[in-house]
């Protein structure tokens, strides 16, 4: 393997060598190289195998559009599949592997697919692998995956940091070529906030490889001066290595900055990639244009490359892509390649110009007109070509140019379709609402002077106008040649998907003629490059066979992302433990000290049970329940939603929110309330207390706290803004604990200051502001979810753990023990209290046995719709209790209820089990259920059918209150 590195030139640092490996072999390159340029410099041409036919493939482009040179980069948790060798910056120690070859790149078993080519034509998935069906899973799918898969993903966690950030600007400039630099410079001089983003490792765009002259200097020198000025201007942010991938509502742009992809391991605390959301008042799309391949026989053989890429490798990276080149072009720009190659000592055998007329471009190279290449000779590397007149030319490099496509992707991501411009034979950006404007060659301006002027004009809208420097223009004229019909061998339209011109024709013949159907049928335009090279050719070929214009055929839909974006970058720092925020109760520390096991409840983590050594969750919960029912227990209920409702109209407002009445509630008292939705279904429940005439303290369920707050805000702001009421969430201000059990009063009496807790001074449903522990503000409520004589005590959150410890200490002599959400749930089921499983968005208050709470004297949310016939029907499923006839049977949540002798079917369904619990007090599993006409069916024996476990047994319907129906304990 001999060196293809040119002796001089290029933007590489020859003084430093970077070592890297490709497929385990060691190579060397220089700072400034990409992986592709370094491999090409080392004479490495064969970089991958194609998707379907496993044909040898090499580098085609010098950038983002690369469909072939996809590699697995890095190893272990940092491995990234399908990365483009043409955009990977070389670093010392880089490790890459080729993909889609088995067992090795040089000898690939799958290449036999080429011989079986008729099987693999467009639509092969649908046709071949459909029958017999069972073969799909067992045989075809695994085989296809192995043969046709792209790179493989790592199964290890990615050890690197990813980050998200927002940025704001007056003008976002996307692309830092001549047009982008002019736009940014003009705006910067007007002192507005500018962000200049470019996907390249170095700013300058095409000026990094095209030999231009601007303002009497080289294009590169001019660019360097402009970039230096921008870098020193306040309010200008330069973002190299940043791909703007999406344009979204509100003129927000998504971008990925590859902060540390150019080093093996990011420095400590630095992210690998940063996901920017750029909020731009205006944006300029100066993304340039993409050169197209020509579709001809063997146009994928390693050594066939885009003409502009050949220039980029020689001018920017000092790499000669071959020794003897042939240029195949349908436009003037191909001549630049011939010129530049000769300048660096590469022989140019001929320019094959498909146009009959002479080009305006100078070349000094033998040029044949009105000729095309029909065949490329060579397998793993080009060794020659054959023209349509039969002439054979020896060469090892074919530089092709099928014209240029403005890069309009971003401008089309919000629904607008690009417009065909026949003068340049390319689609140009559609008119937009002005918030994103394409300039330069992205707008179809193909001359350098036009690009500079266009950029300057856009950037000068902020006040200062910018003089356009003089420059030399290269000729640009194009006469379309989409495909060489007389091609020998496969002529590829989409390299990555191995879609050929024949596939497009087949698709059309088989009736898939719409451009979107052709895309799906042939897979043209899919996968990582999204048809950056192939789409326009495919559209043109389709237009030709359909006898329509390119405009009539149109493009497929443009969507984000412009280039692939890693999941890591989209997730940012929010993965693993930080997937979502964790919300801790003020009693978390107290519960942790007592050995609690925690459970996720929305974002909250709540103490679920407090096991003693060796206890299972069930044994622990069983003990906690008994202790609360027989002695006294403490439970953290801080997560309940708590809303302070105040104002002259607070009572009137609550009357409209709840189906029952609160204006009649006495000061110092609490009341259980139910809110409905406007459609008459129950929404939430909770206890609300009146602290003073115009001050209420509302509680909601933990699960609905946020929704209730939003609902309250809606009702006040959108429905009744005339009410004098205000409300604020105080959920987090108060640590709240339930103290329940026969010894609850005795325990609390030791904690409160100056209050005697008796049935007269503090009766059931009393609610008062008091102090505890020698002066700590507190609120005490005599309410009960457990059915025991119970209280809920609120103290300011910072005192929560201290107060809970004090209660534990006070209750020590009574045998106090903490209980968690499991015991809480058991006790509420024993008492037939409804919770989320019953307030489930389908039940009415009447269904839950709470129909009498619905006032008939006032307007409230849900009143009218709750009176609908269907919601009053006698046959509705309503709340019942349920016990197994055989005490040993375990009722399971979700089981369905059937008449005793019915078999399970939808028609026979009578209802279902909504909540189940092991009842320590009844010594058996008990349930709450929603049963058709359930209230009238207490005592009926029916079948409980557990479809998941395919079990059924008999159960008896009973009152939902399983335990202490007379509430003797509550009032004890």
């Amino acid at each position: 393997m001999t060196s293809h590195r040119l002796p001089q030139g290029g933007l590489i640092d020859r003084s430093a060598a970077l070592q890297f490996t490709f497929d385990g072999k060691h190579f060397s390159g220089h700072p400034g190289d990409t992986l592709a340029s370094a491999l090409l410099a080392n004479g490495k041409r064969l970089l991958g195998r194609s998707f379907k036919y496993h044909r040898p493939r090499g580098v085609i482009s010098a950038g983002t559009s690369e469909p072939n040179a996809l590699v697995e980069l890095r190893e272990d948790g940092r491995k990234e599949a399908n990365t483009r060798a043409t955009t990977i910056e070389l670093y010392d120690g880089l490790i890459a592997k080729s993909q889609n070859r088995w067992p090795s790149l040089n000898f690939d078993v799958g290449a036999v697919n080429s011989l079986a080519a008729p099987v693999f034509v467009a639509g092969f998935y649908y046709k071949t692998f459909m029958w017999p069906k069972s073969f799909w899973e067992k045989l075809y799918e695994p085989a296809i995956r192995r043969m046709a898969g792209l790179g493989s993903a790592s199964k290890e966690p990615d050890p690197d940091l990813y980050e998200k950030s927002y940025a704001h600007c007056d003008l976002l400039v996307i692309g830092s070529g001549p047009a982008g630099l002019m736009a940014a410079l003009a705006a910067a001089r007007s002192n507005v906030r500018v962000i200049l983003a470019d996907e390249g490792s170095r700013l300058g765009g095409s000026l990094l490889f095209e030999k231009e002259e601007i303002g009497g200097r080289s294009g590169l020198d001019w660019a360097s001066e402009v970039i230096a000025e921008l870098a020193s201007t306040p309010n200008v942010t330069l973002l190299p290595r940043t791909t703007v991938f999406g344009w979204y509502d509100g003129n927000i742009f998504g971008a990925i900055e590859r902060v540390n992809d150019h080093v093996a391991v990011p420095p400590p605390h630095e992210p690998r990639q940063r996901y920017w959301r750029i909020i731009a008042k205006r944006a300029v799309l100066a993304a340039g244009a993409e050169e197209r391949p020509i579709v001809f026989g063997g146009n994928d053989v390693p050594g066939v490359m885009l003409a502009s890429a050949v220039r980029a490798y020689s001018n920017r990276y000092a790499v000669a892509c071959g020794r003897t080149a042939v240029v195949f072009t349908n436009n003037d720009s191909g001549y630049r390649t011939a010129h530049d190659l000769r300048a660096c000592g590469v022989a140019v055998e001929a320019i094959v110009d498909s146009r009959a007329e002479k080009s305006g471009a100078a070349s000094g190279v033998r040029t044949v007109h009105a000729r095309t290449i029909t065949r490329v000779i060579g397998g793993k590397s080009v060794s020659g070509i054959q023209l349509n007149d039969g002439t054979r030319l020896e060469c090892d490099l074919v530089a092709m140019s099928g014209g240029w496509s403005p890069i309009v992707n971003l401008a089309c991501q919000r629904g607008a379709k690009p417009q065909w411009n026949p003068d340049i034979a390319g689609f140009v950006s559609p008119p937009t609402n002005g918030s994103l404007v394409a300039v330069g060659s992205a707008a179809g301006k193909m001359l350098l002077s036009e690009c500079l002027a266009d950029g300057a004009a856009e950037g000068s809208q902020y006040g200062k106008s910018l003089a356009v420097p003089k420059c030399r223009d290269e000729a640009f004229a194009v006469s379309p040649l989409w495909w060489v019909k007389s091609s020998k061998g496969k002529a590829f339209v989409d390299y990555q998907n191995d879609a050929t011109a024949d596939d497009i024709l087949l698709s059309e013949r088989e009736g898939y003629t719409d451009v979107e159907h052709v895309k799906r049928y042939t897979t043209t335009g899919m996968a990582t490059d999204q048809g950056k090279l192939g789409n326009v050719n495919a559209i043109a070929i389709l237009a030709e066979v359909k006898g329509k214009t390119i405009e009539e055929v149109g493009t497929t839909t443009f969507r984000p992302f412009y280039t692939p974006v890693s999941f890591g970058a989209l997730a940012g720092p929010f993965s693993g433990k930080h997937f979502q925020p964790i919300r801790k109760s003020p009693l978390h520390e107290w519960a942790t000290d007592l050995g609690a096991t925690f459970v996720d409840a929305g974002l909250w983590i709540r103490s679920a049970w407090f096991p003693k050594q060796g206890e299972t969750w069930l044994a622990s919960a069983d003990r906690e329940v008994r202790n609360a029912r027989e002695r006294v227990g403490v439970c953290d209920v801080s997560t309940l939603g708590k809303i302070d409702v105040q104002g002259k109209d607070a009572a009137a407002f609550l009357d409209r929110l709840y189906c029952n009445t609160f204006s009649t509630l006495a000061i110092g008292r609490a009341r259980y309330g139910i809110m409905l939705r406007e459609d008459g279904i129950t929404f939430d429940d909770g206890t609300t207390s009146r602290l003073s005439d115009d001050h209420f303290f509302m509680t909601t369920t933990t699960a609905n706290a946020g929704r209730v707050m939003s609902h309250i805000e809606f009702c006040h702001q959108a429905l009744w803004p005339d009410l004098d009421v205000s409300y604020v969430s105080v959920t987090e201000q108060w640590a709240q604990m339930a103290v329940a059990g026969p010894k609850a009063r005795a325990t609390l009496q030791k904690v409160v200051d100056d209050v005697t807790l008796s049935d007269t001074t503090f009766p059931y449903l009393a609610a008062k502001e008091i102090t505890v522990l020698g002066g700590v503000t507190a609120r005490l409520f005599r309410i009960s979810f457990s059915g025991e004589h119970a209280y809920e005590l609120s103290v300011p959150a910072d005192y929560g753990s201290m107060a809970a410890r004090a209660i534990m200490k006070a209750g020590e002599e009574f045998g106090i023990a903490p209980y968690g959400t499991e015991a809480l749930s058991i006790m509420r089921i024993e008492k037939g209290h409804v919770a989320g499983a019953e307030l489930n968005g389908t039940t009415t208050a009447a269904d839950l046995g709470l129909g009498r709470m619905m006032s008939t004297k006032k307007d409230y949310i849900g009143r009218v719709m709750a009176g609908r016939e269907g919601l009053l029907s006698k046959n509705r499923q309503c709340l019942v209790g349920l016990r197994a006839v055989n005490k040993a049977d375990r009722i399971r949540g979700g089981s369905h209820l059937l008449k005793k002798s019915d078999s399970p079917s939808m028609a026979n369904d009578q209802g279902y089990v909504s909540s189940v619990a092991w009842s320590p007090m009844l010594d058996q599993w008990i349930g709450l259920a929603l049963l058709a006409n359930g209230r009238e069916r207490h005592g009926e024996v029916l079948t409980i059918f557990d479809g998941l476990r395919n079990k059924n047994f008999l159960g008896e319907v009973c009152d939902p209150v399983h335990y202490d129906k007379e509430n003797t304990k509550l009032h004890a």
Partner: protein
Amino acid sequence: MPEQKPVRASPLAGVARPGRFGSPTKTPGVELSVLHPASIVTVIARKDCADRLRDALAKLKDCSVYWAGFQQYYVVAEGRADDALHRELMEQLSGIATISDQSHGRIIIRISGPNARQTLAKGTPVDLHPDEFAVGKSALTQMSHVVVHLTRTGKDTFEVSLFRGFAESFWEWLAQQAGEFGYRVA
């Protein structure tokens, strides 16, 4: 029961430990401190009292008043006895505002230093450029999936207040974002 004066427990006790963290090579660009114990009181204008409330708030001494929504403010003070600010406002603003103590419900974190703005920009879509977000200005926004109240209290100084339950989770996020600049915890 105990006559010992109760001590407020910070939700970030044991989490926000003093020291120097993050990038070992850079001079710390961010300083983080937890303002605890602080007094924070929500004040909402009663109907047709917005102007009177604004005037009354302007006369308050030894505390800061931050916008916190429609005719709604946070009054914040440091070094007050627990509940003192709340009681004071109850007296002074009686009849024109709803007063609700949030001193325990919210925690305030101060972020300062040359990279403070960059650190916060990783979380909030609010434009923190000093021309757009000047000293004294507040915003209600989301950072790290948590709703926060953000105020610029100085050229390079911001205060974030949020529900105490999220404090630990938010702190971990904030510390990671400041990591690349290096940060000091006071």
